[in-house]
């Protein structure tokens, strides 16, 4: 069980590293003056990290310990803006997910996530549900020949529907029974 926890922590560490634009574990370990073998084992989950390492990683990557250790709280909006600005001019990105290689139009996906982040605090859904909905928007738009402006309009409409839908469900729950 501890092994699994280390792997989950390691995966979040890897995500935070990439969002901070460190393309390789080696480059980051050199930046923070941590032996590469130590850092790579933390990232792979082969080894649990010390408190001092945890503090260092959180500080250097601008993430909270709650998020890194327990997946509590959120990555901040500015992280996604940083990601978007880094990849704005690139059409595709190789994303490694559960050992599968997916090719994603990062420009389109970033647009969806950025639109969602505007309402993030108002939408109370599980991360899985949010991701599924964003994937649906992506899958519907990626197959169309719509131009960027039209796609952006459809993204706004879809995310707005999410906000309206979630608010409506919340209101139904709070209406007292007669």
């Amino acid at each position, binding site marked *: 069980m501890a092994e699994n926890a280390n792997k989950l922590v390691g995966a979040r560490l890897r995500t935070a590293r990439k969002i901070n634009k460190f393309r390789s574990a080696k480059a980051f370990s050199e930046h923070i003056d941590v032996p590469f073998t130590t850092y790579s084992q933390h990232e792979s989950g082969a080894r649990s990290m010390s408190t001092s390492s945890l503090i260092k990683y959180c500080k250097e990557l601008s993430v909270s310990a709650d998020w890194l250790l327990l997946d509590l709280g959120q990555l901040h909006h500015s992280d996604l803006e940083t990601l978007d600005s880094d990849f704005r001019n690139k059409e595709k990105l190789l994303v490694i997910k559960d050992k599968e290689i997916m090719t994603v139009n990062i420009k389109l996906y970033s647009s969806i996530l950025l639109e969602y982040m505007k309402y993030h605090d108002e939408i109370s859904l599980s991360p899985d549900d949010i991701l599924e*909905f964003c994937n*649906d*928007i992506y*899958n*519907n*738009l990626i*197959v*169309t*020949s*719509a131009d960027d402006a039209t796609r952006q*309009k*459809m993204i706004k*409409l*879809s995310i*707005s*529907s*999410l906000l*309206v*839908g*979630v608010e*409506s469900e919340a209101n139904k729950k709070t209406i007292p029974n007669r």
Partner: protein
Amino acid sequence: MKMIHKEALEISFKHQYKIKKIFSEILGTHDIEHFSLDLVNPDSEMVFFSGTPSHAFEICNRGLGEYDGIISPEHYENYEFYWWKEAHHKAFANKIQAIRSGILGLKYGFMLVRKWNNFHLIYSFATKSRNLEFQTKVINSINDLLRVGDWAYEEIRPLYANYSGIYEPPKIDVFYQFEGGKPPSRRTKKFLVTKKNKTNILYFPNLQKKYENS
């Protein structure tokens, strides 16, 4: 003549969350992987509520909406059931099929049509599977599929009321089994002609008696 509502291509995106929630109850049953409600008011104006918003969008965006036989009055006014492949426009069949099957992955599709209070309620189903038994399954489950379509329409009906023009969408309160041929024209128990923007309501008690007794 086919008339598409001015917001038709946006509606499925505008209400994507609600549509997805409702249609998720349908997808996966009977190998169905696409479902949409194509609703036509008495003025022949059509609106789409689709679980695959890209479907109508891409066909219309490429200028093929006018030629898509599956939503042409020629078919939905005359057939209670038809396969998509039976309704393809002769000149553009390949292009439309390339979008449906090639881009969207929808291999087999069909329509079931209800006619209530001069509205045409078109239930559009499709699968991405190449299973040759799909067509047999559909025929054997046709009444189940009609129930599914009726249920989905009732869930969407309040939303559709915002796009149905001056007409109130009918509330389906009776299930009718599949009959084949032209969609039977049915009336709800209280068939009122109302003008939404005016207060006067025209009520035809004699007509209502006639339909109740028929």
